[in-house]
């Protein structure tokens, strides 16, 4: 690995390009052609930067401690040479940001036709969503982590509001009210950790952590509780899942792609931080495990009850977040690889399903399984895409969901918890049932409305099919060659387990 000592050129670009694009798009406001050119060029630039960039660090204050041999160390006891506010760009960050920017490109291209006015403002919010996800996945200090989570939650409200429906306005209001709790909790956790260890940087804090001091242990537990609270909030885990599912279900389906990417990346990033900092505390992993098991099961049961395809998908996204956190909170190398790979796969196959849902939306009669039927005759390729997405989501072999779920099942068996493997199996089977209930009713049931020819709705944009084809290609690629993704994730998992102070 060619990790460089000096500040990496590419890391500021991941923040600056989205912000500049957002400002420019806000100014352009509703000039369609200029907006589409600007947005496409900016997101292409993000993809190019994420592919070309080497691995390395960026420090805002402080320096790494340099050894006489020319290498550098993470020793916190060298005064004046402390790491401080720090970003890291490694293999995990590379694949996460690459996928997120590819999805950003697709979403932006589809979103241009979605709003009659204020298109520029809406797309600038999408760029800021990407920015908050990139901040949180790259960060190695609490301060930027906190800011990223706070900005992210505010922007989610903005993206959801863009649909202009009553449901989405209510969802945005409720979600923003809760940002008070989670943001305040993360701030208090940050203050407690700063008070106990004296460092805002996570590497420094881990080394300076007074694990043997019994009088400070309770402070650490409270900090752990508040961090878990913000983790639950940012990722939509068990007690806050109704609000997050409202957010997913009431945004435009294409916007939900970016929202779920953001929350999966936040789950991975904050989960790894909790594991690195508090993994040695007793009962920490058990708390995280119970949160993820509850999320999985409640999410999937609630998905069974929905009669609208959007809401089924919304609860399934929540439930599959539980799969990601299950792998991370097992704390073994295999488990973490499984969790990270599940996050990557989840983002891809849920995007396939959400784009299919967007396609149904264009036929003009909503996405409820009671009123919509017989789409397969009019859009056969959309039906094929939705079925492939459903197979991938429920872990059928040639697609990518299978590869990560088998790693998760093996990891939980090796951990000595066969019940967790049963839960994972139950989740994938129920995902299949819930999705096919919707897909059968929407695509395959014969059209009961005799005047179906009258309500043709909008034409489905050609771009949607191109994006679906690209995403299905990635789905099958990761399903056949899982090593393509796992090679990126190995290093992060090994570092978290064996040398947690290295980002």
């Amino acid at each position: 690995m060619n990790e460089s000592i000096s500040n990496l050129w590419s890391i500021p670009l991941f923040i600056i390009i989205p912000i500049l694009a957002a400002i420019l798009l806000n100014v352009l406001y509703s000039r369609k052609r200029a907006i589409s050119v600007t947005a496409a060029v900016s997101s292409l630039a993000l993809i190019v930067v994420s592919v070309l960039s080497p691995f390395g660090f960026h420090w805002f204050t402080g320096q790494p401690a340099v050894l006489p041999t020319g290498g550098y160390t993470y020793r916190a006891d060298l005064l004046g040479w402390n790491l401080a506010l720090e970003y890291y760009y490694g293999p995990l960050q590379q694949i996460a940001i690459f996928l997120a920017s590819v999805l950003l490109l697709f979403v932006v291209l589809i979103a241009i036709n979605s709003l009659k006015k204020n298109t520029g403002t809406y797309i600038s919010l999408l760029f800021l969503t990407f920015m908050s996800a990139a901040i949180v996945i790259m960060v190695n200090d609490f301060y930027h982590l906190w800011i990223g989570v706070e900005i992210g939650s505010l922007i989610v409200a903005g993206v959801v509001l863009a649909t202009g429906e009553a449901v989405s306005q209510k969802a945005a209001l409720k979600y923003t009210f809760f940002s008070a709790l989670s943001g305040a909790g993360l701030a208090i956790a940050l203050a407690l950790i700063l008070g106990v260890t004296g460092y805002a940087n996570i590497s420094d804090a881990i080394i300076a952590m007074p694990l043997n001091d019994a009088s400070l242990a309770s402070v650490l537990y409270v900090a752990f509780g508040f961090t878990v609270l913000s983790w639950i909030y940012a990722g939509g885990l068990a007690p806050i899942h109704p609000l997050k599912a409202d957010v997913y279900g009431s945004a435009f389906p294409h916007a939900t792609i970016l929202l779920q990417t953001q929350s999966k990346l936040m789950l991975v990033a904050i989960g790894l931080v909790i594991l690195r900092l508090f993994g040695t505390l007793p009962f920490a992993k058990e708390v995280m495990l119970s949160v993820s098991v509850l999320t999985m099961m409640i999410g999937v049961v609630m998905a069974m009850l929905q009669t609208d395809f959007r809401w089924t998908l919304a609860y399934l996204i929540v439930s599959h977040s539980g799969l990601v956190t299950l792998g991370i909170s097992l704390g073994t190398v295999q488990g973490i690889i499984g969790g990270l790979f599940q996050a990557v796969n989840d983002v891809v196959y849920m995007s396939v399903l959400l784009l299919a849902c967007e396609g149904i939306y264009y036929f003009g009669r909503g996405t409820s399984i009671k009123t919509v039927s017989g789409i397969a005759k009019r859009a056969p390729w959309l039906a094929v895409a939705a079925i492939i997405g459903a197979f991938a989501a429920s872990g059928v072999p040639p697609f990518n969901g299978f590869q990560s779920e088998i790693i998760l099942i093996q990891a939980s068996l090796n951990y000595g918890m066969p019940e967790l493997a049963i839960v994972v199996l139950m989740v994938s089977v129920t995902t299949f049932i819930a999705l096919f209930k919707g897909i059968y009713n929407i695509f395959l049931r014969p059209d009961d409305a005799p005047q179906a020819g009258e309500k043709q709705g909008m034409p489905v944009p050609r771009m949607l099919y191109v994006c679906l084809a690209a995403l299905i290609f990635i789905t099958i690629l990761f399903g056949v060659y899982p090593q393509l993704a796992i090679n990126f994730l190995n290093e992060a998992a090994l570092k978290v387990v064996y040398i947690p102070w290295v980002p």
Partner: protein
Amino acid sequence: MIELNLQFLSFMAAAVLVVIGLGGMLFLDNLIKKIIAFTLLSDGVNLALVTLGYVEGGIVSILEPGTSGAAFPTNAVLIFGPGIVLTNIVIGVSTTAVLVAVTMVLYQRYGTLKASKVLKGERK
């Protein structure tokens, strides 16, 4: 007997603010009142963070030309509270702005500010 010094009293004030804020968010029905309760909650958290760093009989942690370098690290107020709170105040203002904007839109739609009517859980 707990000594009634400034730090203890400030913690009490912060606890009162947090409890009143949470209670207001839970039990009050008016949306504007809920937003005011939210500002009280974030004020309470800010106060708690500042009080955590307070040192009895300390000095402000700004290195002025007159201050002696030796006494500064031991006497100065811990800097982490102010560092976080400064950001938290700004975030609180922007969150309040978003909340008020959404409330205005919801009022135009429903004609009422009662949370029990506006936020009724009808999904369709």
